[in-house]
């Protein structure tokens, strides 16, 4: 009986892991609410299921990310994503270098909230030392990021907001901030 239960538990954990992985880059959201019935079926809490999944993903170089975009939404609506662990010592990205850099700047400026296009352009111009070039790069990167559903742009108000997907894929904000400060200070020395 116990062996049968263990088999079921294993099967359900593997199913949830596959569900989260296969929806990592798609429209369909996997929230805590969606996986809680699976946790109930094997008699564990959602938190325990998440911990177990995190451990398993960690072992194979992946990272389970729980993204709650704002304090207004309930904990159940927090979204789950699987990404390749950004701490791994490999240089790889799903986006091209320039777009990744722009995404990092947006994250540093906006965090989980919003920022303005003007603000990003100002930072980029500061880094590049050329406003025209910065405008060119920014408009191209914004189009790509929007297409990949990593940002939302309110063109009327000029606001940019990162989506849950972008928040899941990016490393820690402090780390990116340090990289950007390093680059800007390096520019100003020159």
């Amino acid at each position, binding site marked *: 009986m116990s062996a049968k239960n263990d088999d079921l538990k294993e099967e359900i954990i593997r199913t949830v892991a596959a569900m989260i992985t296969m929806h990592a880059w798609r429209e369909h959201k996997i929230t805590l609410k969606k996986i809680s019935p699976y946790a109930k079926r094997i008699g564990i809490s959602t938190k325990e299921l998440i911990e177990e999944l995190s451990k398993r993903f960690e072992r194979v170089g992946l990272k389970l990310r729980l993204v709650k975009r704002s304090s207004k939404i309930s904990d159940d609506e927090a979204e789950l994503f*699987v990404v*390749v662990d*950004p701490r791994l010592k490999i240089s790889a990205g799903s986006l091209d270098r320039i777009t990744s850099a722009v995404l990092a700047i947006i994250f540093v400026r906006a965090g989980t909230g919003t920022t303005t296009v003007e603000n990003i352009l100002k930072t980029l111009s500061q880094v590049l*030392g050329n406003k025209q070039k910065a405008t060119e*790069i920014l408009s191209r990167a914004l189009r790509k990021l929007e297409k990949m559903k990593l940002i939302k742009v309110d063109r009327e108000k000029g606001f940019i907001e990162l989506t849950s*997907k972008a928040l899941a894929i990016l*490393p820690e904000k402090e780390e990116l901030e340090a990289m950007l400060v390093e680059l800007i200070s390096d520019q100003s020395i020159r």
Partner: protein
Amino acid sequence: MAEERDEATLRYIRELIGYLERYLSSKGLFADLEKIPVILENLSRSDEVSEKIVDNSLLGTKLFQKLRKYLSSHLSRIDKKLDEIMLQFALPLVLSKMAFDIFSLGKMKVIPPIKVPILTRQYLRSSIRSLKKIVERDKARRILEKKRYSELASLMRFKELIEIKKEELKAGLGRKFQRLIAGGLTSLEALELIKIMSRRELILGVLAFLEM
């Protein structure tokens, strides 16, 4: 002479029979397809051919038998090719309509490949650094453009000087140079003059003279 011509006509008829046989045995996959109509056209122009195939009835019968088979085989081949062209023309339209019907009715779902997103720290660091490279590349380009402009400016200035020299030569000024040209560059006087003239004066003079 007449015998030679007869022999040539017979050889030509046999050659045609050979081509027809090859066409029929290879079921139309015969490589030199254009050869048969060309030979047929040439033969039809010659009066001697009809005489020869009547004289040599065995050869004539063989030729007409092969021709009959060739014509029916070739016509059906053309017919088949036309059908293929029509099918090729209609097929993409039919296929796209079928695909559109299937997907619009929701009978089939398109499943994109599953990818796990990745953006490592190392990659982001190098990405942010790549912004610096853009700046450096831009600076290098600007320097190069400036250099090109200064080269162009000096070339234009040089051209201006040549024009001035040309005007001088036309006005009969620059006697030394006039004497140098008049005496020929290999003369002793020319060598003496080259010694006393500055290099710049000499180059400008020669170039102005060549342009005149």
